[in-house]
C-alpha cells in the first residue's frame, strides 16, 4: 500500500496555475526524485504535501487518510525546506536540542557524536549564523539522524554541500529506504544511489 498519495492536486500561486490534477504515490521503501525547471512549482508541491499550504483542489493522503485528519502525520514525517529552521543566534547544539523538544522526540541520540559525524567538530557551541552555508546545511540535515520518521520530504537537500557531505546524506537515505522508509526529494543534481530511484517531472506551465 502506498504511504503517501497525492490525489488530483491543483495549485494556484499568484493567480498562476502551477499544476493541475496531479496524482502520484510514494510507496514504502521508495525514493521519488522530483524534477523540473525553476518556477515549475516543486517547492509549492512539497509544501502542500507536508501540509504547510492548502491545495486549490485535491487532497493528500498518508496511510490512506487525509493528512489534516491524520494525528500521527507530523511525527512520521521530516520536512527540510529551503529555510534551514535554525536560529542564527543559537548554536548548533541549542538549535538541534530545541528541535528535539519541539518535535517531542526522545533525546536518545548523542548530539555531540552526531555533529562529529557530520564534520562539525569544534563548532557545536558557535552561533549558527557564524557558520558557512554548507555547515549550516549540515546542521539542518542532522535531523535525518535524530527523528525516527517513515517519510522524508527534502527540498534541495544537497545545496551548498561538499562531496563528502553529499555522500554522507546519500548513504543515510539508502539506509532509510532499506529499512522500508520513503524519501521524496527535489534536486538539480543527479543522485548516485545504489537503490532504484523513481522520477517525477513537473513542467513549467504558462
Amino acid at each position, binding site marked *: 500500500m502506498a504511504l503517501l498519495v497525492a490525489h488530483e492536486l491543483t495549485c494556484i500561486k499568484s493567480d498562476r496555475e502551477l499544476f493541475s490534477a496531479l496524482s502520484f504515490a510514494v510507496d514504502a521503501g521508495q525514493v521519488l526524485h522530483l524534477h523540473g525547471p525553476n518556477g515549475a512549482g516543486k517547492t509549492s508541491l512539497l*509544501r502542500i504535501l*507536508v*501540509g*504547510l*499550504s*492548502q491545495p486549490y483542489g485535491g487532497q493528500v493522503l498518508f496511510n490512506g487518510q487525509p493528512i489534516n485528519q491524520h494525528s500521527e502525520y*507530523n*511525527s512520521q*514525517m521530516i*520536512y527540510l*525546506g*529551503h*529555510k*534551514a*529552521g*535554525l*536560529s*542564527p*543566534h*543559537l548554536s548548533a547544539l*541549542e538549535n538541534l536540542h*530545541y*528541535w528535539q*523538544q*519541539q*518535535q*517531542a522526540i526522545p533525546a536518545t541520540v548523542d548530539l555531540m557524536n552526531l555533529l562529529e559525524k557530520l564534520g562539525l567538530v569544534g563548532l557545536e557551541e558557535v*552561533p549558527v549564523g557564524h557558520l558557512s552555508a554548507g555547515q549550516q546545511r549540515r546542521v539542518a540535515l542532522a535531523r535525518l539522524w535524530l527523528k525516527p520518521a517513515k517519510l522524508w520530504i527534502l527540498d534541495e537537500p544537497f545545496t551548498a554541500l561538499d562531496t563528502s557531505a553529499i555522500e554522507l546524506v546519500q548513504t543515510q537515505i539508502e539506509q532509510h529506504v532499506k529499512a522500508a522508509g520513503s524519501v521524496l526529494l527535489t534536486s538539480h543534481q543527479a543522485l548516485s544511489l545504489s537503490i532504484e530511484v523513481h522520477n517525477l517531472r513537473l513542467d513549467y506551465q504558462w
Partner: protein
Amino acid sequence: MVMQQLSAIFKRDMLLAFRQRSELLQPILFFVLVIALFPLGVGPGPELLQKMGAGVIWIATLLSALLGLERLFRDDFADGSLEQQMLSDCPLSLYALIKMFSHWLVSIVPVLVVSPLLAVFLNLTVDMYWALVLTLLIGSPLLSLIGGIGVALTVGLRKGGVLLSLLLLPLFVPLLIFATAAVDAAALQLPNTGQLALLAALLLLALGLAPLATAYALKVSQS
C-alpha cells in the same frame, strides 16, 4: 508533552532575547525620548504636563510597542523555525500565546520599570502614578495580543513596518481611551475601578481570541 514543548519555546525565547539584548533596549530608549520631547514641544508648564501626562505616556507606549512588535514572529518566520513549529504536534495557538507572553515580558515590562522616571518628567501625582502602573499592567498585554495578530498577518511581507502601524493603531483606540480615562479619574481623586474593569474585560476577550486569530493568520502567511 505539550507543556514541555511550550516551556522549550519559552526558554528559547528568553535565550534569544538575552543574546539580542541591545536590540531590545532600543524601543525603551525611543519611549523615554518621545516622552522627553513633549515638554520641549508644548512647554514645561507643570500643570499642562500633568494634564497631558497619561495620554502622552500611553501614546508613547503604543508607538514603542509597534517598534518592538515586528520581532514577535519575524525571526522565526525568516529562519524557518516557524515552518518546523507548524509541523509539530504542538497547537499553533499555544505557540503564539507563549511568543506573545515572552514578547510582553521582554519588550513591554521594561516600560513599567522606567515608569517612575516618567512620573517625575511629567509631574504626575502619586495617585496618578499608581493608576498608570495599574493600567499598564492590565492594558499592556493587549498590545502583545492584538499586535500579534497584525504581525502574523504582515510577517511574510517584505515591507511590513508602516503597514503594521496602519493596521494596529485603530484597534488600540479603546485601550487608549480606557487607560487614559482611568488615570484622569485618579487625578481627580475619583474611583477608577470601572475603567480598569473594562480594560480587564478587553484583556480576557483578547486572551481568548487573539491566539486563535494569530494562529490562523500565521497559516495564511505561511501558505
